[in-house]
C-alpha cells in the first residue's frame, strides 16, 4: 500500500502548512479542526498562499485548481478512517494529543499510519494509548512547512520498521529530506541547537560580549546566517525559552541544557522579539 490520502488533525500554523505541502505534491488531504469556522479559515489561508505562487508565476493556474480540489475540510474525526496516514498537529498539550490518538486508533483501520508533529513530547508516551504502538511515529516538520526541507521521523520504542520505511518514502515524495531519529528529548535539531542560544546567553550574561557583538561574531567568524539573538527575536523569545525548558526538563535537569535567567527576564518583560516590536533589538512594526 502506498500513501495517497493524508489526514491532518489541527489546522493551525503547522497543520495548514502540512496540508498545503501535501496537496501540492498530489496527495488528497482531509483537514480537521474543532469547528468549521477554524478549518475554513485555514483553508482560505492555504488558498491565499497558493494563489500568491500563481501570481508570482511559480505555479500554473491549473495546478492551483487541482491542488485546492484535493483538500477536504472536516470536523468529524471518524473521517480519518479513509486516510493512509494521519498527521496530528494540535496544540502541544499531552492530554489533547492522547485523546486524539485514542480516538484515531479506534476509527482507523490497522494499516493507517498515525503520526504526531510534537516538538517536545515522547512519541512513545503518545503511542502508549494505542493498541500496539507499531503504527505510531513522530513526523516532525519545521516552520514554515512549505519552505523548510527537513522532516525528522521519530521512532518510538514500539514503532515498526515498516512504518518508518513508508514514512521515509512519504517525506521524499513531498520533496523533503527525511532523517530518522530515536525518541529522545528534542530529537536532533531542537537538542543540538540548544547551545547556539544557551551558550550565547551565558556569554552575554557573563558580560564577556554584548548580544550585538555575539551576533556579528557568529555570522562573520562562524558563517551562521543569523546570530543567536537575532534568531531568537525572529522565532519568539518565549517560544525559544519554552523549547529550552522542555529539553532541560526532559533530560531531568542535565546542566548542559539549563535555561538562562536573562532569557526568562525577556519573556517576563514581554519583549518577545519581532512579534512584540521589541526583543534584543528594537523593531518598527
Amino acid at each position, binding site marked *: 500500500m502506498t500513501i495517497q490520502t493524508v489526514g491532518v488533525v489541527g489546522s493551525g500554523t503547522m497543520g495548514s502548512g502540512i496540508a498545503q505541502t501535501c496537496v501540492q505534491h498530489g496527495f488528497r488531504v482531509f483537514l480537521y479542526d474543532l469547528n468549521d469556522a477554524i478549518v475554513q479559515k485555514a483553508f482560505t489561508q492555504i488558498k491565499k498562499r497558493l494563489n500568491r505562487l500563481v501570481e508570482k508565476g511559480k505555479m500554473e493556474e491549473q495546478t492551483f485548481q487541482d491542488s485546492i480540489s484535493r483538500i477536504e475540510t472536516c470536523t468529524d474525526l471518524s473521517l480519518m478512517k479513509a486516510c493512509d496516514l494521519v498527521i496530528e498537529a494540535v496544540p502541544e498539550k499531552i492530554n489533547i494529543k492522547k485523546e486524539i490518538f485514542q480516538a484515531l486508533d479506534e476509527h482507523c483501520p490497522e494499516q493507517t499510519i498515525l503520526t504526531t508533529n510534537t516538538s517536545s513530547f515522547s512519541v512513545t508516551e503518545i503511542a502508549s494509548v494505542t493498541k500496539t504502538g507499531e503504527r505510531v511515529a513522530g513526523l516532525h516538520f*519545521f516552520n514554515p512547512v512549505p519552505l*523548510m*526541507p*527537513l522532516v*525528522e521521523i521519530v521512532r518510538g520504542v514500539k514503532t515498526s520498521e515498516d512504518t518508518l520505511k513508508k514514512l521515509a518514502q512519504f517525506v521524499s515524495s513531498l520533496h523533503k*529530506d527525511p*532523517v*530518522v*531519529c*530515536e525518541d*529522545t528529548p528534542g*530529537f*536532533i*535539531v531542537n*537538542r*543540538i*541547537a*540548544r*547551545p*547556539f542560544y544557551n*551558550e*550565547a546567553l551565558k*556569554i552575554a550574561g*557573563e*558580560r*564577556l*560580549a554584548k548580544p550585538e*557583538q*555575539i551576533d*556579528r*561574531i*557568529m555570522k*562573520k*567568524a*562562524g*558563517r*551562521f*546566517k*543569523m546570530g*543567536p539573538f537575532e534568531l531568537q527575536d525572529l522565532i519568539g523569545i518565549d517560544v525559544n525559552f519554552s523549547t529550552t525548558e522542555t529539553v532541560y526538563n526532559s533530560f531531568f535537569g542535565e*546542566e*548542559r541544557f*539549563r535555561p538562562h535567567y536573562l532569557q526568562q527576564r525577556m519573556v517576563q518583560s514581554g519583549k518577545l522579539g519581532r512579534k512584540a516590536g521589541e526583543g534584543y533589538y528594537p523593531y518598527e512594526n
Partner: protein
Amino acid sequence: MKTKSFTVKVAGEGSLADSIIAQLRETGHQLEDQSAVHSNFDIVIETTNLDIDQKKKLLVEIEKTLPKETVILSTCLGVTATETASWLQHPERLVGFAAFFPWEDCELVELAPALQTEKENVEKAKQFFEEVGKEVEVVEDGVGLVFPRILSLIINEAAFALTEGVASAEDIDKAMMKGTNYPMGPLRWADHIGIDDVYAVLAGMFKETGEDRYRPAPFIKKMVYAKWFGKKTGRGFYQYD
C-alpha cells in the same frame, strides 16, 4: 614575514599556524625564514591549544629571544589570555585571540586583552589583523571567547547525541543544515576545524569553570587519544582518503 607595518613570526601547533602562514603568503606578504635566529619581530603569533604545558614552554622559550616591545598574540582556545600572560616576563605584551581553522574562511577575528595587557598592544594587534584583511571584535577574556566556545558546545552536543544513538552522523549533519540552516553539519565541521582544537576548548572550559555543562563528550576525548583529529589525519567523525 612582513605585512605593511609589522615583522611577524608564527609559532605553535594546531591547524591555525600553517593556515595563517599560508594566507599571509597568498595575500602577498613577504615571508621571512622562521628558523633564522632573528629576534626583531614586532609581533609573534602563537597557536598551540591542545597541550597547554607545551604552549607554556614554547612561549617562555620564545620570549627569551624577544625585545620587550614585541607583542605576542596567543590563541585563547584552551586557556585564558590572562593565564597565558602570567607565564611571561612581560605579561603586558600579550593579547589573546580566537579563531578556528580554516583561517581564510573567517572574516572576523576575536581579540581579548588579558587583565595584564597594555592598551596600546591591543591597538597594535587590531591594526595587524585589519592589515591582513580581518575584521576585529574585541571581547572580554575567557576560554574559547565567543565563536569557538559556542561552536564547540554544539559539536559536543552532536557527539553526545551520536554516541547515544539518536541518529547517524550523516543524519545529524543533514538535520542541522536543513532544519536550522547551519552552514555545515556540526560533525563534519568539527572534522574540518580539527578535533584537537575543539577538544581544547571543551577541556579548557571544563577545567576553568568546573561546570558539568562543559564536560567533553567521552567520544571526543577518545578521538583525541586515537589522534582522530579529523580531515587532517584522515579520520574524525568521518573517514577521509
